């Protein structure tokens, strides 16, 4: 009898365990409702686990990204989608007003975001506001300058855009295949700083074209995101026009002998900002996520994003990365008064916000870019 009871008990136990194991997923599903899906339009990396996993787990949401490469590509994707397709849009700052003009984004409530924590340079960032109406909130930025192979050029040599014409890199200068940053750098080299390297008259535009064409004999190729990485990493290209630490920072972690500097002529700032998609029904959770990304913890993730690093526009973000990863804070200059402190560069007037052309059309710049590539 005892044996029988024991036998029965073991079987019952096994059956019970098996049933429990099989039923567990159902129980889990019953406990938690299906996660809310947040459709995000963004550059690659922004909806990857290193950025969003923690927020997803804590808020029972699931990010569904649609990645793009370049502002034009982003505008095309959104223009071909019905209203409400994207709940959250990460845009380069220079395209925010185009998103606004086309009616693709919602007005935002400035009181919901920690602007007091922003450095003054970013509190009322051009392009994000029309008068006092907010359309986008900056989440990260970075600087574009001269990116170079440290075996080929010294830091001093790289401190001017003239480094691209250095005989030591003849045939080994690559372009990130996007006209805005490359032509912006040529414009800076020509001294077009006031009001902006992108706001130039016809004479200055002609001079920029001439200067750019003179670089042609030095050029080894035009590359997309992946090609830029591989050609800098394998030493096929020794200098790259139109990029910065967002590429070389990743490569340096892999041990590549590359670096980026902001040259004497000045650097160009790229900016990534969140906007709320027109017609979304998920404004509340989207706002919560934007605030999460602007929190110290979110900024630490953003600064160290696996796809490509960025800088923090908030004071608490700087403090947080100094505590969480002092080496990264030092490397990226997120320490007040450091040589590469980006705020110091802003105050010295050495950084210019990347913009769309003001006195020419985007088509003019792109047409020239095609001509330059085939010259």
């Amino acid at each position, binding site marked *: 009898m005892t044996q029988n009871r024991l036998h029965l008990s073991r079987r019952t136990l096994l059956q019970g365990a098996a049933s429990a194991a099989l039923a567990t997923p159902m129980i889990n599903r019953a406990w938690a409702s299906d996660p809310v899906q947040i459709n995000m339009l963004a550059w690659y990396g922004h909806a990857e686990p290193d950025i969003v996993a923690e927020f997803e787990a804590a808020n029972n949401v699931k990010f569904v990204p649609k990645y793009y490469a*370049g502002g*034009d*590509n982003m*505008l*095309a994707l959104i*223009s*071909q989608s019905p209203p409400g397709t994207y709940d959250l849009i990460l845009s380069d700052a220079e395209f925010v007003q*185009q998103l606004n*003009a*086309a009616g693709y984004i919602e007005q935002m409530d400035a009181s919901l975001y920690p602007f007091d924590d922003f450095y003054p340079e970013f509190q009322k960032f051009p392009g994000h506001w029309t008068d006092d109406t907010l359309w986008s909130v900056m989440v990260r930025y970075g600087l574009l300058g001269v990116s170079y192979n440290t075996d080929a050029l010294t830091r001093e040599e790289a401190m001017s855009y003239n480094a691209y014409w250095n005989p030591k890199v003849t*045939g080994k200068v*690559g372009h990130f*295949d*996007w*006209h805005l940053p490359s032509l912006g750098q040529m414009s800076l080299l020509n001294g077009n700083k006031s009001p902006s390297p992108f706001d130039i008259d016809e004479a200055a535009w002609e001079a920029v074209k001439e200067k750019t064409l003179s670089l042609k004999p030095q*050029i*080894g*190729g*035009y*590359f*997309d995101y992946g*090609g830029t990485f*591989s*050609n800098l990493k*394998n*030493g*096929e290209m020794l200098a790259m026009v139109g990029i910065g630490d967002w590429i070389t920072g990743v490569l340096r972690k892999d041990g590549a002998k590359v670096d980026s500097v902001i040259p004497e002529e000045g650097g160009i700032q790229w900016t990534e900002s969140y906007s709320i998609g027109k017609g979304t029904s998920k404004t509340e959770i989207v706002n919560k996520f934007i605030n999460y990304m602007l929190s110290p913890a979110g900024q630490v993730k953003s600064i160290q994003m696996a796809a490509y690093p960025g800088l923090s526009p908030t004071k608490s973000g700087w403090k947080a990365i100094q505590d969480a990863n002092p080496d990264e804070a030092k490397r990226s200059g997120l320490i007040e008064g450091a040589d590469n402190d980006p705020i110091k560069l802003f105050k010295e007037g050495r950084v210019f916000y990347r913009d769309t052309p003001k006195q020419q059309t*985007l*088509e003019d*710049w*792109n*047409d020239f*870019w*095609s*001509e330059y*590539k*085939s*010259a």
Partner: protein
Amino acid sequence: MTERTSVYRIFWRLPLILWQGAFFVVPVAFLAVMTFWLVKNYRMEPDFILTNWEKTLGRGVFWDAYWLTLWRAALAAVIATAIAFPAAYTLAFRMSERTRRFALFCLIVPFFTSFLVRAYAWQVILAEGGPVNAVLGSIGLGPYVMLNSGFGAMVGYLTLVLPLVVIFQTWGLSAIDRNLIEAAWNLGATPLRTLVRVILPAARTGIFVGAIFAFILTFGDFVSPFYLGGSKPPTLSILIIDTTKSGQQWPRAAVVSMMMILTLFLTSAAALRIAYRGRG
């Protein structure tokens, strides 16, 4: 009887007609219509304007890219045909049926992997610090710039098309009546004369079809000129990407595509006419 035959014929032709209609005629017609559309605020709007044709064909950049693409495709077809022939000849005439089947299978194996992955592999191999330059360096040569050049692009083109060309040529050569070759020998023809007067004319169709495929595939290839040629200078496929990237000028990209389709149609038709001439 005639009516039944006609229904029977239409029935068997219907899948091909439907397929070509749905996946070739309709898309090409749409592409042609799109060339007259307008782009406003990054959005295409149906219209009937000639601006896209004028702006595309009126630019030197287009014609530079056009002639470069045409030249590279023709060169790749000729090189692939020349390199493939000895291999195809050996497979067709010097190997057993079993070995030939195995060799043909080996030629298909590269297509099991993505062409993009193979192009990335070539990036490593052709790099200045890569294995090819290392071997050349060991005998005091180089280093040579092979990546991000016309040479690099050509390596990519041949990687894409060479196995196909060998397969087409092998089929063409295998179909030759061996009695003709033996008759030529019996009549005292030298091996070279037999090759030129008997084998090549008899295998003409396979050789031409292989060359046409090589031309078509390289003419439209984006991966080789972009990832191995460094976009320097741009081909038509790269020009399409550039055109769509800035301002979303899909109608102008459609003009480039229409010109590519027209070119391929004319060259293929001419080559096929030569390939099948005299065959009834």
